[in-house]
């Protein structure tokens, strides 16, 4: 079988699309005619296919983390203690927020039950016991604080240069934060005027939730769309 040494060296370039259009067409014509080159080219293509199918990840046979962790203790001087204290991971805070909010909502739920289905605790609620009102307010305040903390972390990130928000998005974000803040403040005032209206407490927490979700969404998109997720 005739060996086409001239084109053999170019098969790789053809595979990598490094040939000019003219050269590429010439080689395509040659491949149609020359079985040896065609075979060689097909093997190259098959090799590329195999490479594409290679695992992108190979796990080491032993856990390397303990050794790395030990070495990190001597490294990492760049992370300041102040920053370390300041760190509050948004998702950890959000978990805390979720827990506080569940407690608060649970209390509100209890407070909304009619007296006819009551046990002792609910009787107290329906009676409007000041102790329980205080406890409810405390739970709602805790839940609010958890939301405020979570929002603060997202806000700190979004205000940093690394978030790289486009100017129009920043304007949209700021405008909508004003809307969310106004909503919180309106509901809060209403609840202060009608402290026995527990449904307003639920509304208040829902407004906080919207605000955090707004920030969370912007932070998520800022990360996902700028970094390929």
């Amino acid at each position, binding site marked *: 079988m005739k060996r086409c040494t001239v084109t053999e060296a170019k098969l790789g370039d053809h595979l990598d699309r490094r040939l000019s259009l003219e050269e590429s067409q010439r080689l395509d014509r040659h491949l149609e005619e020359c079985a040896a080159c065609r075979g060689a080219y097909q093997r190259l293509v098959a090799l590329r296919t195999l490479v594409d199918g290679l695992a992108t990840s190979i796990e080491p046979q032993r856990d390397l983390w303990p050794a790395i962790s030990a*070495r990190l203790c001597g490294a990492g001087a760049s992370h300041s203690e102040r920053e370390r204290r300041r760190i509050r991971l948004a998702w950890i805070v959000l978990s805390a927020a979720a827990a506080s909010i569940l407690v608060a909502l649970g209390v509100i739920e209890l407070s909304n039950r009619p007296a006819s289905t009551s046990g002792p605790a609910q009787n107290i609620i329906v009676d409007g016991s000041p102790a329980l009102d205080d406890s409810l307010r405390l739970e709602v305040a805790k839940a609010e604080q958890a939301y405020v903390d979570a929002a603060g972390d997202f806000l700190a990130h979004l205000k940093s240069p690394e978030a790289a928000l486009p100017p129009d998005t920043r304007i949209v974000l700021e405008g909508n934060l004003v809307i969310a803040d106004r909503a919180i403040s309106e509901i809060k005032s209403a609840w202060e005027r009608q402290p026995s209206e527990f449904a307003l407490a639920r509304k208040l927490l829902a407004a906080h939730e919207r605000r955090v979700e707004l920030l969370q969404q912007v932070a998520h998109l800022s990360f996902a769309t700028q970094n390929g997720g």
Partner: protein
Amino acid sequence: MHIPGEHGGENQEAGAADEYSLVICAQRGDQAAFERLYRNHVGRVFALCLRMTADRELAEELTQSSFVRIWEQLGKFKRKSSFGTWSHRVALNVVLEYMRSRARRPKHTASRGDAAIQVAKSDSPGARMDLEWAIRALPERARQVFVLYEIERLQHNEIAEMLGIAVGTSKAQLHRARQLLRELLE
């Protein structure tokens, strides 16, 4: 969003939001967060080290060094690429630095030539495993160029710069690697 190996393969599809939180946390010194990043990405870094060195122990050593370097340089990560891409690039630099430093010293391992090739031919359970073995069996320079070009998708000029060789040499080594692999896999 994942590209091949972006998060260590399809089985490790850590959410972008989680990763975002972890990176911020790790940048501020949280080792637990960094451990999670390590767990998400170690497979891809180790695969790079193993394919470049063809030596499991050395690959483990370089993987460790890579993650220490990643930790040290976290402050420089500005999130203009994904953490996976950035950390992979740091690991690649660690591997290349090692290769360059070793090139200046007497080599501590024998060249893996024909003996390894025989292993590849006889011990291969499947086509892809064959390929892994065959890549490891390649002569060192051909293997490095092949891995950087075909798997890491770098261009010849980048490879030439990284390995300190001419662009033509990079192309020639790639051609040689392909020829050898074709022979090995036939």
